[in-house]
């Protein structure tokens, strides 16, 4: 799996070591380490062995995640089809409505040409779909030097930016 990260300060980069252990519904918690559990299991994890993460998909209700956000270091959003845009709205709600500041990772059918939009909506790490070229993907974040509307990356609509001169 190719994992990328992107933020405004450091730009885009490949992530070599991913410490997260992805657990299914049934797998017992290990004695130590950082774990990802499905949303439905989150309430049952009273004490995590290390850092804690939740796995959701675009259709998940952010209200169900909200009570747990303070103890999550990562939210993994599964994108089953690249044409399913629900993850974009979910990410924006988690960031701006619920104030989530931890890592937000897109996994699944994640393609180079979605990366910039995903980032603008609040994602900051990306597991690229299998077989896709990491070098191609790294270039995706610098394709645009200006955007019209506010999102999670900035809050200045173009008409206000123009006014500022």
């Amino acid at each position, binding site marked *: 799996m190719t994992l990328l990260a992107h933020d405004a300060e450091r730009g885009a980069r490949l992530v070599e070591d991913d410490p997260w252990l992805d657990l299914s519904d049934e797998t017992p918690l290990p004695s130590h380490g950082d774990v990802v559990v499905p949303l439905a299991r989150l309430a049952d994890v009273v004490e995590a062995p290390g850092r804690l993460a939740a796995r959701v998909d675009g259709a998940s209700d952010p209200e169900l995640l909200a009570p747990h956000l303070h103890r999550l270091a990562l939210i993994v959003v599964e994108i089953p089809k690249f*044409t399913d845009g629900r993850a974009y709205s979910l990410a924006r709600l988690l960031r701006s409505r619920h104030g989530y500041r931890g890592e937000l990772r897109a996994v699944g059918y994640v393609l180079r040409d979605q990366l910039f*939009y995903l980032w603008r909506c609040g994602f900051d790490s990306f597991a690229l779909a299998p077989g896709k070229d990491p070098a191609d993907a790294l270039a995706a974040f610098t394709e645009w030097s200006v955007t019209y509307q506010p999102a999670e990356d900035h809050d200045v609509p173009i008409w206000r930016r123009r*006014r500022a001169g």
Partner: protein
Amino acid sequence: MYQYDAFDRRIVEERAHQFREQVVRRIDGRITELEFKPLRLQNGLYLQLHAYMLRIAIPYGLLSSKQLRVLADVTRKYDRGYAHWTTRQNLQLNWPKLEDVPKILDELAAVEMHAIQTSGNCIRNITSDPYAGVAADEVADPRPYCELMRQWSTFHPEFAALPRKFKLAVTGAAEDRAAIAVHDIGIRVVKSDAGEIGFAFYVGGGQGRTPLLAPCINAFVPEAHLVSYTEAILRTYNRLGRRDNKFKARIKILVKAVGAEEFARQVEEEHAHIAEGPLKLAREDIEGFRRFFRPPMYEVLRDDDPTLAAALLGKDRGLASWFAHNVAPHRQPGYAIVNLSCKSPDLPPGDVTADQMDAVADLADRFSFGALVVTHRQNLVFTDVKKRDLPALYAELTRLGFATPNVGKLTDIVCCPGLDYCSLANARSISVAKQVAERFEELSKLYAVGELHLNISGCINACGHHHVGHIGVLGIDKQGHEFYQLMLGGSSGTDASLGKVLGHALVHDEVAPAVERVVLAYLAHRAGPEETFLEAYRRLGPAPFKEAVYDPARA
């Protein structure tokens, strides 16, 4: 009209560059065809029956003569010398080659044009009233709002993978010339009792296989919340719209399923969180857009121009007929709005040749401040012509074939490209239009048929807007054969309604005679020449028309 600044130019150039790279990656296989599809669609590039089709955006239908000349040039250089005005105020090229598309986009970018979001499951080109800015019945010019919304929706990161396509229309006038009732969102500019500008939002209208008129979900959204309220609607739809079935994925299905009231409540709830955020518009924000749409430098003229009055009384009855049918009143004394009919017997409805485009560009410079508008009825409009110049303009338009005195009349047929071009179509539409036009050329000379909209679609996707034609024709496929349903009573105007199927489907060559029998039945039954076809149909119901079509011996 709107002028790009450095930001707009950079965005369009970066888009052209991005698409060029995407084509390279598609050709060398780094992107599969499946993955490429939404990318090319959001750049207006369809794979059609015989070739690619490129749909070029004309925001709210407004073009400068300079842009039109480049469209002519592109049509000549990269296509077969003709193009097609669409029912959403855009232009389609029917035969471009994939490898030429990046070059076309570069040439368009040089005159502030593009093909961004003219297709795909995203927010499409925003359409408006062709008489915007000059209509006598206008609350406010809708174009500054259209441009503002164009910028907000362009490459919106959250709404690039919606359940389905999304179409907005904005009107600022009392009479609806933008068909807002059959859009995903229709916006009407309104004024409160206190004199404040706001917007009535109609959401969940549409045509296609489930035609629905949009209910009003909010009668007054304050001007400052135009964008935030629209974003709240889009977010609600993006999260809750159906994705399991393409045919149930439009917002109209969601609004119908939960009910307009409940949908409005969900939107309000979402909007409450973002109303005071960065999308809230300041007065200066709107003013910044408004200044691009100030009236041109009109001459001070008397409204009853003697040159025109004399010419109208002259020997050429063609001028009088053209003036009565194709010219509309202007709010500036001494000026008129001129409709150019693109429905001549020589070309399929909406088709235009490169040479015609160049000639129209010259006329726009000479007669109408170098600007023109494409209408959703596939005609063109010069919005600011001096009445004094009308006889000279008439002569030029006649020479070019744009003066057929039929705007809003039966032979002003709205028609999709149909089976001759389109991979979705079930039936031919252009040939039906041609047969009707031929049959009615004589008839409309004999009778004052009055306002009558005929709309033809070659399939259920309804690009010819057959549901809102006073007479609608829909091509369908029955066991591999072309058939046509006849619908009566639709309207896209202020009194919007959906047409009802009259009876069993007809074969290709029966359509034109059937339409003729409908019109003759109208002429026989109307209360008087002032009763339009639509009014007569609403008064009489389908019975006399049904009899005329299916039982002509009795009728």
